């Protein structure tokens, strides 16, 4: 396995917000191409490239753009979702800091394609330096005629506003993000209507993840055919994997999709487990993904293979847990985080997350019973089955999968009581 630098090739090669460094390495070629092609052709190219969202849900980008482009009248918006709040996920930051012009170029092409004059980048409130950089970047972009009216001498007008998120996990969820941008409570909303129909301020809105948008200039600059040569059937291109947990070397690695297995990735890039013990479990798609263990770790690094193995690629945040730690301990750590992050809008998630946290604390503290484990399963299943948004549907997954994969850990925690 080796890294392939498609999106990240300029990272570290120039000093943002220096534009010259970006342009010198092929920057803005895609934007110029796009302006010459026209919005419809841009959307067609993105569709042909088979780009899917990199934020977690994996929705196809081209069709999403087409929905918003289809609305011909009135204000439309594009939002770059740079909240990146998912546990074990820090790949967007690499692009935001290392090659922000690439992301901006993606934003501009997206705005051009869908006809959005107003765009936002909603950046994680804890990325202080990133936000500072982007504030400077916007000033530079205005100076260079890349934001404002008549961009690059065309009739394109796009403005970008940098928004510091309020530091809530839930604002990574697109509707909560939109609510937050509207100065409302950061809480999810009911779908439908989808943001593409009624998004920001009730207008059609595209919400794209940072990495998704960074793919766009690459696709246009390199050409669809070249792009599609990478990856596997149905999943072209590369992906940025964040690697963390009990590994020797954590970091962000850009890999061709499907170029190796999860186990190989951890071994080759992470340098094996931190304590040298065997891997107990891995979450391949961020902190809300199901655990994989044993033979499942031999799955290829594609969305389909990971799904077949019993988890999800999510944000491609790979978190490794080595032997020696109880699964109860692991889920306690995770739920401690999610236990405060429900927006509170829907009953099962709002109450369920707190009850699950209480029960896990109880089990971890040696006070648990069989009934407690049953309650964990019931609450978890109910939340997954009926919650509105990804938060409620996903936070119980690690708990449920830990109960399935490591029942002995939970029984051991309970037995302490009877003993």
């Amino acid at each position: 396995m080796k890294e392939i630098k498609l999106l990240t090739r300029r990272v570290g090669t120039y000093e943002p917000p220096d534009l010259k460094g970006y342009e010198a390495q092929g920057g803005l070629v895609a934007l110029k191409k796009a302006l010459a092609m026209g919005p419809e052709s841009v959307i067609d190219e993105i569709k042909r490239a088979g780009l899917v969202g990199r934020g977690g849900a994996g929705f196809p980008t081209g069709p999403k753009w087409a929905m918003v482009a289809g609305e011909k009248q009135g204000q439309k918006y594009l939002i770059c979702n740079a909240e990146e709040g998912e546990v074990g996920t820090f790949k967007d930051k690499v692009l935001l800091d290392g090659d922000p012009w690439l992301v901006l170029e993606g934003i501009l092409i997206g705005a051009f394609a869908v006809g959005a004059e107003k765009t936002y980048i909603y950046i994680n409130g804890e990325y202080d330096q990133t936000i500072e950089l982007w504030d400077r970047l916007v000033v530079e972009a205005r100076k260079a005629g890349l934001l404002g009216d008549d961009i690059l001498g065309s009739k394109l007008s796009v403005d970008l506003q940098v928004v510091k998120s309020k530091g809530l996990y839930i604002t990574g969820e697109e509707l909560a993000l939109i609510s937050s941008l509207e100065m409302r409570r950061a809480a999810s909303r009911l779908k439908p209507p989808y943001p593409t129909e009624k998004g920001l301020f009730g207008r059609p809105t595209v919400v794209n993840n940072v990495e998704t948008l960074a793919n766009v200039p690459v696709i246009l600059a390199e050409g669809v055919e070249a792009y599609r040569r990478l990856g596997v059937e149905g999943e072209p291109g590369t992906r940025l994997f964040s690697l963390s947990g009990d590994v020797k070397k954590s970091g962000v690695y850009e890999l061709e999709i499907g170029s190796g297995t999860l186990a190989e990735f951890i071994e080759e890039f992470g340098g094996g487990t931190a304590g040298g013990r065997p891997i107990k479990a891995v979450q391949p798609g961020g902190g809300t993904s199901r655990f994989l263990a044993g033979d499942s770790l031999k799955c290829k690094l594609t969305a389909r293979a990971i799904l077949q193995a019993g988890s999800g690629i999510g944000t491609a945040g790979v978190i490794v847990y080595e032997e020696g730690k109880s699964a109860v301990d692991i889920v306690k750590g995770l739920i401690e985080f999610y236990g405060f992050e429900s927006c509170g809008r829907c009953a099962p998630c709002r109450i369920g997350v707190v009850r699950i946290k209480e029960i896990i604390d109880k089990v971890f503290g040696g006070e648990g019973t069989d009934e407690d484990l049953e309650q964990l399963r019931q609450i978890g299943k109910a939340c997954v089955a009926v919650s509105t948004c990804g938060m409620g549907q996903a936070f119980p997954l690690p708990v449920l999968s830990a109960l399935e994969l490591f029942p002995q850990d939970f029984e051991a925690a309970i037995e302490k009581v009877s003993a």
Partner: protein
Amino acid sequence: MKEVCFNIDGTKVTAPEGTTILEAAKGVGIDIPNLCYDSRVEPAGTCRMCVVQIEGRPGLTISCNTPVAEGMEVCTENAEIAAIRRTVLELILSDHRVACTSCDKDGACRLQDYAYRYQADEGRFGLPERRPVKPNYATNSEGILYDPDKCILCGLCVRYCEEVQKAEALTFAGRLGQIEVSTAFGMDLHESTCVLCGGCVEICPAGSMLDRAAIGKGREKDLTRTRTTCAYCGVGCQLDLLTDPKTGRIVKVTSEVGCIPNNGNMCVKGKFAMDFVGSDKRLTTPLIKRNGKFEEATWEEAIEFVAERLKQIRSEFGAESIAGLSSAKCTNEDNYVFQKFIRACIGTNNVDHCARLCHASTVAGLARAFGSGAMTNSIDEIKDAGCIFIIGSNTTEAHPVIGLYVKEGVMKNGAELLVADPRRIDLARFAKLYIAQKPGTDVALINAMMNVIISEEIYDKDFISERTEDFEKLKPILKDFTPEKAEAITTIPAEKIRAAARIYAKADTASIIYSMGITQHTTGTDNVLSLANLAMLTGNVGKASAGVNPLRGQNNVQGACDLGALPNVYPGYQSVEDSQLQTKFESAWEQKLSGRKGLTVVEMMHAIEEDKIKALYIMGENPALSDPNLNRTRKSLEKVDFLVSQDIFLSETAEYADVVLPSVCFAEKDGTFTNTERRVQRVRKAVTPPGQAQSDWEIICEVATKMGYPMAYGGADEIMDEIATVTPIYGGMSFERIDKVGLQWPCPDKEHPGTRFLHEGTFKRGKGKFHPVEYKNPDELPDENYPFVLTTGRQLYQFHTGTMTRKSPVINQVSPTGYVEIHTDDAAGLEISNGEKVEVITRRGKVTTLARVTGNIEKGWLFMPFHFREGPANMLTNDALDPTAKIPEFKVCAAAVNKMKQPV
């Protein structure tokens, strides 16, 4: 609308496209459990209880936000769904302080019902920790209690406040674990933008919000529920009075979603101002004034006394020396009996009521233009209009529930709202265009709008040629009435007048809504005729959601007019001067009748000065506070030889009376009211009257009988049956037919379904008639000594002379006393600060009140609400009359305002 066919739990169902699964299921009697759904707000899907399984779709889908589709197969419950519902309920119960044992909502609580249905165990996931007791936004509210320990955060109250009432007072505060309903910055509810509609209390599914005054006074399941019609404004909201059968008192008021016309919505008065019913200030026994003091009397004595005095005065001075004021607060049956008593027993047409002071000009103007003086359309059509033109109506304050329909039209259906009012009323927030005409200059504004419509040729030529007459007479008057000319008169910039004209004329349906800002002028009839001209010019009459819609102020002012409590017409607007009609009524009432029309309200007061009226019988009215130029009115009340006041309280007027007769209020009697959309609705007895109080019609019948004209009915329904025989527009009415939803007149026979909107196909009078109207100045203009224009009106929290509303602690908390609104710059010039005591002076009087300094009124103009006996606005108002309708000019007079010398 397209119908779709689908399957719910094995049953074939059809429903209109767009119907949600939840609603469709409800339609076939399947109650899909939910704790956050209400048909009046957008689905939010926060409780997640309403999930169903749809064949071919993965997982579960919430039914409150999913429309049905052709061929869809829905399973509303199976073992898996039931188990999930139970778990969700148990989660909710783990966060809800279960206090059914001491909760008012016990037995009427959705959460409790579902917990029972699914046998949810409230302790399954542990009992909630009690929050430390600390004040919340409602702690100091007289109206509402909020218990965060019981709150299930379904969001219904917040959404109702935002989406339906649009008060935007409630919101959520805090993050997980500490989320609560609150106001902005947690300010006290009564100081927030809350309008106290009580919608939050009504919509709460879990007993977390309660009527504060009702706590501990009876659980809903133990209370008796009586459906009746509200006794405040003319909207005619259907209310449920919940009474304690043991004490016979009203405990609280609710309303049912789906009822017509209010769909379960209420305003502060209907919800929180029923304290007057059980007030200890109610009259309980007849009183006769002896040596200047009221003494209690028996009914026999009192009736005898009244009958004797009236007979004596009639024989000495003739029947024309006696006059009666009927009441827009009383039922149709009371009004019918009262006018029959004055006409058949006394022998005069001197009968009038307070419609004279509110919509006499509407009745006169619209009758001339269209042939019928009532709201042309129905309330629920307003929300579907393309343009809503509100002029001289502070709808959200005076007719709050109609205000909701206006807001719904704008916010949900995209109606373009035009607001013309001297004050920046709340609806201006929702307006596409708000214009402020100087008080009394409405004709100039309307003429200029028509000038624009004609010169830009955006009028409806076909409608004019087919449906109207005298259009040619209109043109010359409008020719020179340019927006520039109107700008000089109204102070509205000409361009805005043009814009207003275009918005109105270009809408496919445009509905004019007006009220006393139009009618209470010496040019009131002219104003109404102008609006009729405007509507006909653009073809906006005779179809749904268009028309000219006067909002009637009192609960039954429509009915009192309909039933002939007017000096010129018998019931059903049948002229007293028409000898054929006179003969018809003479035979129906078996008595000779006068063919001469009688005196109007203000004329009666003036006739007393001239010794022409010797006796005045007042039923349920309070002219000593409601009439213009009170000093003059009160002198007349003092002067008249014999004054009877029949009322529920010892009003300002009753204090001048020789005899006071205690009557029953709306909650204590059966009968009907007719609301502003011509809908005759039931009033039902919910509580026993205090002391010896009697129904108005019963008292009148006894007096008539004593005077030698026997009148007797077995009940209010019998009176309605008699009304139907002599009143063609009420010909099809009966208590039986109107039992459930009422019926809109004209309804000529028992098979007629009633009339939603008037003048379809043809006007009542045949062709609609244009009346050229010249602009005339108001009677009194500002000058050096009286430099301000004073206008008067209502406010949300009070009603009329406050006899009813001011008994409510909830209302007293938010509206303790009167005030005068003055522009910030004017106040600065006079060194008046907000809340300071000021003196308002006109040629007729002087009152002391508090200054309310605001930017919502233009410079040079003042506004006073007229409800308050301390600082009564009507001490100041002008009693100059409209020559046609005899309505006084409450809305414009010249005034001065002074800072009061502060005590050192």
